[in-house]
């Protein structure tokens, strides 16, 4: 037998079937199993389980926090958009107001200018009328004088009253 050649065991050739060692193996196996069981169930497994649970919790919390932050970001964006729209509306309103103000000012200024122009024009007309009136008077004077002179030159003797009447008649006509 092979085992006999090495001079090892006196039992059967297969050490696995050497029943004299079974008690020994089983005894140590049971001790080993009990020790491993207690190490695992008392120390190792609760610890690893706790670590895994803690990690799971941390991850869940982080995801929740991230979700929260995301919601906040969306909210902030909405607020920003709203503010932007409000600002735009306000700007439009201000522009419209300014336009209206300017228009009103402009209208007022135009009206004032118109009034001033009208006043100036009236003054001018009055001046013209005066000038015209003076001119007419002057013309009448000149005409009277001229007529008197002409009549005198003609050798006639003109009385002032009839000359004036004639000139007036002529001027009217």
């Amino acid at each position, binding site marked *: 037998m092979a085992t006999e050649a090495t001079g090892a065991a006196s039992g059967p*050739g*297969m050490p696995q079937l050497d029943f004299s060692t079974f008690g020994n193996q089983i005894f140590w196996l049971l001790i080993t199993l009990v020790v491993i069981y207690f190490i695992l169930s008392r120390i190792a497994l609760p610890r690893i389980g706790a670590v895994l649970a803690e990690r799971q919790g941390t991850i869940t919390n982080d995801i929740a926090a991230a979700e929260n932050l995301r919601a906040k970001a969306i909210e902030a964006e909405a607020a920003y958009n709203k503010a932007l729209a409000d600002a735009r509306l306000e700007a439009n309103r201000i522009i419209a107001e300014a336009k209206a103000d300017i228009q009103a000012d402009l209208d007022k200024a135009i009206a004032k200018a118109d009034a001033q122009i009208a006043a100036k024009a009236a003054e001018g007309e009055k001046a013209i009328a005066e000038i015209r009136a003076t001119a007419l008077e002057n013309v009448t004077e000149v005409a009277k004088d001229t007529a008197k002179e002409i009549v005198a030159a003609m050798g006639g003797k003109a009385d002032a009253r009839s000359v004036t009447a004639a000139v007036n008649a002529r001027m009217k006509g």
Partner: protein
Amino acid sequence: MEGDIAEMGKFIGAGISALGMGLAALGVGNVAGNFLAGALRNPSAAAGQTATLFIGIAFAEALGIFSFLVALLLMFAV
């Protein structure tokens, strides 16, 4: 010639029972091959069935191990 007819019988028996290991290898190959064929047809279902695959392989291989055990017993224990 050394040995006797009983020794010869032991060796022949061990050799024949070693054939059983080769047959178990056929069985294991059959299991794995069919699993692969199925997995390639439906890859999404493959991941959930690896445990079944290993159980099948283990059962097929156990019989080969039994024949190996018979060979060992003939060689060393009888």
